[in-house]
C-alpha cells in the first residue's frame, strides 16, 4: 500500500508535463470558467477539440480519462435526467404529471453532460500531468497576493506539502493497524452497516494517537533543524515560466475569443 501513487500523477516528458504548474493550474481554472459560456453545439465542439488536443499533446492513455468519469457517472446521469425532465420549452414530446420531455430539455441535458465530461477531462489532465507537490507549489505562488491581508501563505503551502509527504506513511500505518486488529479478530468490511462502522473505531483510535505522536516528533525535528516560520526562508525548488507557458496561455486566450464569437448571444 505504501507504494501507491499519490493522486494519479503519471510522470512523462510531453509538452504538457513540462509546462509550469502555475500556468497549468490557471489554464485549468480558466477553461472550467469558459465552459459555462458555451451555449450552442458549435461552442461545445470547439471546447471538445481543445480538450482532445490537450490530451493528445500530453500523450496520456485515454483510458485514464474514462476512469476519471466513472466514479461520477451516477451524479452526472442524475443531473442530466433532472435537466431533461424538468426543463421545458420547444416541442413537447411527452408529458406525465410534473415530468415533461421537451426538445429544449433534451438539448439542455446533452449540454450538461458535455460540461461535466469537459470539466472532468481537463481536471484529470491537470492531475495526471502535474505532481501533487507541484500543484501545492503553484497554489503557494498564486496565493502570494493574499499575503497582503496576512494570510500565512508559506505556512499553508508547507502544511500542504507535509500532508502530501505523509499520505503514504499513514497508509502504511493503516495497513499495519488493520492487520494487527484482524489478528485480534476484528472483521473489516463484513456485517451490516452498524458492525462495519464499529469495526472502524479500533482502526481510527490508534491511527489518531500515532498521528499526534508523529506530529509532535516532526515539530521537534523541524525546530531542531532551524525552522522558525516561513519568513526569510530560501527555496530549493524553483519553477521557471518558459515560452511554452506563454504559448499555452495565448492558445487558451485565442480559444476564448473564438468562443465569444461563435456562442449564441
Amino acid at each position, binding site marked *: 500500500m*505504501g*507504494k501507491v501513487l499519490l493522486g494519479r500523477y503519471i510522470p512523462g516528458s510531453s509538452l504538457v508535463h513540462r509546462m509550469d504548474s502555475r500556468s497549468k493550474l490557471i489554464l485549468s481554472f480558466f477553461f472550467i470558467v469558459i465552459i459555462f459560456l458555451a451555449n450552442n453545439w458549435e461552442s461545445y465542439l470547439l471546447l471538445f477539440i481543445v480538450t482532445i488536443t490537450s490530451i493528445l499533446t500530453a500523450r496520456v492513455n485515454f483510458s485514464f480519462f474514462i476512469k476519471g468519469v466513472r466514479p461520477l457517472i451516477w451524479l452526472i446521469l442524475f443531473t442530466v435526467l433532472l435537466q431533461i425532465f424538468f426543463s421545458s420549452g420547444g416541442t413537447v414530446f411527452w408529458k406525465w404529471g410534473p415530468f415533461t420531455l421537451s426538445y429544449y430539455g433534451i438539448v439542455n441535458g446533452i449540454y450538461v453532460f458535455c460540461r461535466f465530461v469537459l470539466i472532468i477531462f481537463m481536471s484529470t489532465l491537470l492531475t495526471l500531468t502535474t505532481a501533487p*507537490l507541484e500543484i501545492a507549489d503553484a497554489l503557494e505562488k498564486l496565493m502570494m497576493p493574499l499575503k497582503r491581508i496576512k494570510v500565512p501563505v508559506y505556512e499553508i503551502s508547507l502544511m500542504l*506539502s*507535509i500532508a*502530501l*509527504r505523509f499520505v*503514504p*506513511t499513514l497508509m*502504511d500505518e493503516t495497513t499495519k493497524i488493520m492487520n494487527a486488529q484482524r489478528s485480534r479478530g476484528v472483521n473489516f468490511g463484513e456485517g451490516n452497516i452498524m458492525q462495519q462502522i464499529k469495526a472502524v473505531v479500533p482502526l481510527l483510535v490508534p491511527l489518531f494517537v500515532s498521528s499526534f*505522536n*508523529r506530529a509532535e*516528533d*516532526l515539530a*521537534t*525535528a*523541524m*525546530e*531542531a*533543524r*532551524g*525552522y*522558525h516560520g516561513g519568513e*526569510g*526562508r*530560501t*527555496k*530549493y*525548488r*524553483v519553477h521557471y515560466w518558459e515560452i511554452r507557458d506563454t504559448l499555452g496561455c495565448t492558445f487558451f486566450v485565442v480559444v476564448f475569443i473564438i468562443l465569444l464569437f461563435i456562442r449564441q448571444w
Partner: protein
Amino acid sequence: MVDMIEIKNLSFKYSQQDGQTFNDFNLKIKQGEWLAIIGHNGSGKSTLARLIDGLLAPSEGAIFIDGIKLTPENVWDVRSKIGMVFQNPDNQFVGANVEEDVAFGLENAAVSREQMLVRVKESLQRVNMWEFASHEPARLSGGQKQRVALAGVIALRPKIIILDEATSMLDPEGRKAVLDIIRELNHKEKLTVISITHDIDEASKAQRVVVLDDGKLIQDDKPEKVFSRGSDLVKIGLEPPFSEKLKGELESLGLVVPEDYLTEEGMINWLWELFSRQ
C-alpha cells in the same frame, strides 16, 4: 582541549511531572570528543539532549555551547552549531524527496540556492545517498532515511552532532552504516558527537561514557571501565554487552577472566589465547 559544551548547575523539571528531572547537574564535553550517554528509559538522556539544543529551557543553571551561554535570544544561532538526529526515521523526514529533505535545514538558514545545490550534493555523497536524491521517503529503508537525516545535518556544517537513539529502530546493517559515517565525521572533521543510546555496542564506540540514572550522573569514564561493571549495569536497567555476559558465565564456571571490558573481538582473541595455552 577546549570545552565544546559546558553544563553548569543545571536544574530542570517538566511542568506536568512531580519531582526534578535534573537537579544541580554538571557536565563538560570537549571539542572533538565522542560521548555516549546511557541510562534506562526515563533517566533523562533525551531531556538532556533537548536542553543542550535549546528545545527545552532549564529552570536553573546555565548551558554554554562553544563558549556562548544559551539564552532564549540566541537560541537560533546556537542551534545552528548543533545537528540532531532523532529516533524515528519517518518522523523527521520533512521534504517530499531525499534532496528536498536535505535542503530543508538550508532553506531555514536562508542559504542561497546555488550554495544549496552544492551542499546538498556534497552531503548526500558523504552518506552515499546521492543516487537516491529524487526518491520519496516511502521508497527508502529506515537506515537510508537516517542517512538522509544525517546528510541534512552535515549540510548545515554543525560543530556538534547529537544522536538521540538514532540507530535504535534500525537493523544491524543500517546501524553500522550510520555509525561508520559518524566515526568518519568525528575523526576527520573533529566534530563533537553525543550519542544517546540503549545500545551498548554503539556506546562502546565512544571515547567516553556517561551513565545517567534519574537525572544523576552515576558514572563518567572510558567505555572499557564502565562496561566491566556488568552486574551494576543490570541494576540501572541496562543490558551488559554480549562479551560481558559471556564473561560472567565463564566466571561462574570457575574460569579466571580479565577485569577490563573486552570488545567482542577482544573476547575472541582472549578465548583463543586461553584455548591455546591449555
